[in-house]
């Protein structure tokens, strides 16, 4: 654990776009908001077996304890980093709204096959709970937000409650809970085995059954040959009444992860726990990657309102 070197600059004046620059949003060519906030803590190691097991922590102004939103980056389980701009999108909104933000890295599929990724993310949650006091976090108010591959991982956080195979308890802090109180799932894959069929049904070219697809690389086998391994990382496997509240959003024009992946998760959550705590927003015409429809003021307000509902309540 090391604090960010040097003085923390005032908000909006630093970041990768240079000191003194005005908040660079919107940036031509980018269809997500650029993040200007800098982390207070960089590369906090939440486990020790891989250099990937690190997180950055961003705190809002105030004294806390702060409700926390853990962000889990996408990148097909193959790439991506907690400090990339796409991984950070939304951080400024969350901080302004008074949430702390933890952005986590996890072992990618080139380093370790599933379920290492969800074990890492769950270990990060447990680590944050164990260190809540030190970082002024409210350990009872944790949410997780992920896009694409990151959404698969946060959906597992919200559904796979007390599943020893996914906990990775040996990675650290085994006595802490890895539960989260809310999940924002943006266009995440759920049942890999249905992805190509759903793409074809929607008229998009299939690719996930290929032996070198991201999902096949994740389980280290062509997915259709190992339904047992696919099942382990499918959030639908674990849906019960105990699932966390979910906000699921997905573009209907997503040609990479078909929106039907979210639809089947939504249906399973409703069947198990009713409609009260799960919301599904199909974004008409939006494609993969969190474009402008995801970042419209109305949709940002929807996400923040959902998080408020489950991270601010005193119940």
């Amino acid at each position, binding site marked *: 654990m090391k604090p960010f070197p040097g003085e923390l600059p005032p908000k909006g004046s630093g970041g990768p776009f240079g000191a003194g620059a005005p908040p660079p949003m919107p940036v031509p060519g980018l269809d997500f908001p650029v993040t200007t906030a800098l982390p207070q803590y960089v590369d906090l190691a939440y486990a020790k077996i891989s250099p990937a097991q690190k997180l950055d922590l961003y705190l809002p102004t105030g004294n806390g304890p702060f409700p926390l939103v853990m962000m889990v980056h996408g990148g097909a389980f193959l790439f991506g980093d907690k400090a990339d701009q796409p991984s950070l999108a939304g951080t400024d909104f969350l901080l302004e709204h008074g949430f702390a933000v933890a952005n986590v890295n996890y072992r990618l599929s080139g380093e370790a096959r599933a379920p290492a990724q969800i074990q890492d993310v769950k270990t990060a949650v447990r680590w944050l709970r164990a260190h809540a006091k030190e970082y002024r976090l409210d350990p009872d108010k944790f949410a997780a937000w992920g896009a694409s591959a990151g959404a698969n991982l946060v959906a597992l956080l919200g559904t796979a409650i007390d599943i020893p195979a996914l906990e990775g308890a040996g990675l650290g802090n085994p006595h802490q809970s890895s539960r989260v109180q809310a999940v924002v799932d943006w266009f995440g894959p759920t049942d890999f085995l249905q992805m190509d*069929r759903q793409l*074809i*049904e929607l008229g998009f070219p299939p690719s996930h059954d290929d032996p070198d697809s991201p999902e096949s690389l994740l389980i280290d086998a062509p997915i259709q040959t190992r339904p047992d391994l696919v099942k382990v990382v499918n959030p639908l496997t674990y849906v019960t009444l105990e699932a966390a509240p979910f906000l699921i959003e997905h573009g209907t024009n997503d040609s990479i992860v078909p929106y039907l992946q979210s639809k089947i998760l939504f249906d399973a959550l409703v069947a198990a726990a009713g409609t009260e705590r799960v919301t599904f927003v199909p974004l008409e015409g939006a494609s993969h990657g969190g474009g402008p429809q995801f970042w419209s003021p109305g949709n940002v307000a929807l996400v923040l309102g959902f998080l408020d509902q489950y991270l601010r309540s005193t119940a």
Partner: protein
Amino acid sequence: MDRDLTPPPHYGIAEQPPAADTSFVKRRFLDIAYADLSPSQKLDIYLPDEGSGPFPVIVAIHGGAFMGCDKADLQVLPMLAGLRRGYAVVSINYRLSWQAKFPALVQDAKAAVRWIRANAGRYFLEAKKVAAWGGSAGGYLATMLGLSSGVDKLEDLRLGNPHQSCDLQAVVSWYGPTNFLNMDALLAESGLLPPEGFRHSEANSPESLLLGAQITTIPERVRAANPETYLRPTAPPFFLQHGRADAVVPFQHSLQLAEKLMQSIGKESLQLELLEGAAHADPRFETPENVNKVLDFLDRFLK
């Protein structure tokens, strides 16, 4: 079409049709490789706009004198009318005569049908309901597929999916040749003998180029390429249409094939229509009325 797939010039393909605009089809999957020996071993899948099938399949096979044209050119449009009737359409390319000699094209078409069956579940296709429909060289291939079930030499299982069947449930052949050696003679009977330089018996004819030698010098190889050779007591239902004024492929080919098929499959499963005054690839074949007639025939056996 790929630039490296441009055929050498030949009178048989002096006018190649342009690409069809198929953007009206909401669900289409283009240029899927059904084998990997040649860039020509590709197919396009078109699905009805709604539903998850399984859809009975029309395999669309383009013509082009065995040496030209493409699965996505205008020839596919009549078959695509089947989408509104709940058919999936799979349009295939195959190796052309300047790329590989007979029986490569038949082996390709059979490999494509096996691929369709192997991938039926994935693409909402009904593996047990597969028909082929083509004109000219495409009619030849559809007929060969229909008649040559189980002929080892015409099937190259190394092209993929060896455990699948390439049998068809129906065949629609428009003006397809069935016997390469008597084409000139039959055309002459009708007063339609092509001028010298354009006759089927010559060394530069599409049929000679397909077989690798002037057809009059290789009767055994021609026999192996004639659909008639493979007539047996069983065959799938056939619909044969041919223009009486066809000056490229003599109408007698469809007539004679129908007479022989009558003995095996009977009139319930056989439909023959000779269109008075219609030429080779006449627009009359592609009118909505005629296309609906073909689809009515397919409905009888695929639904």
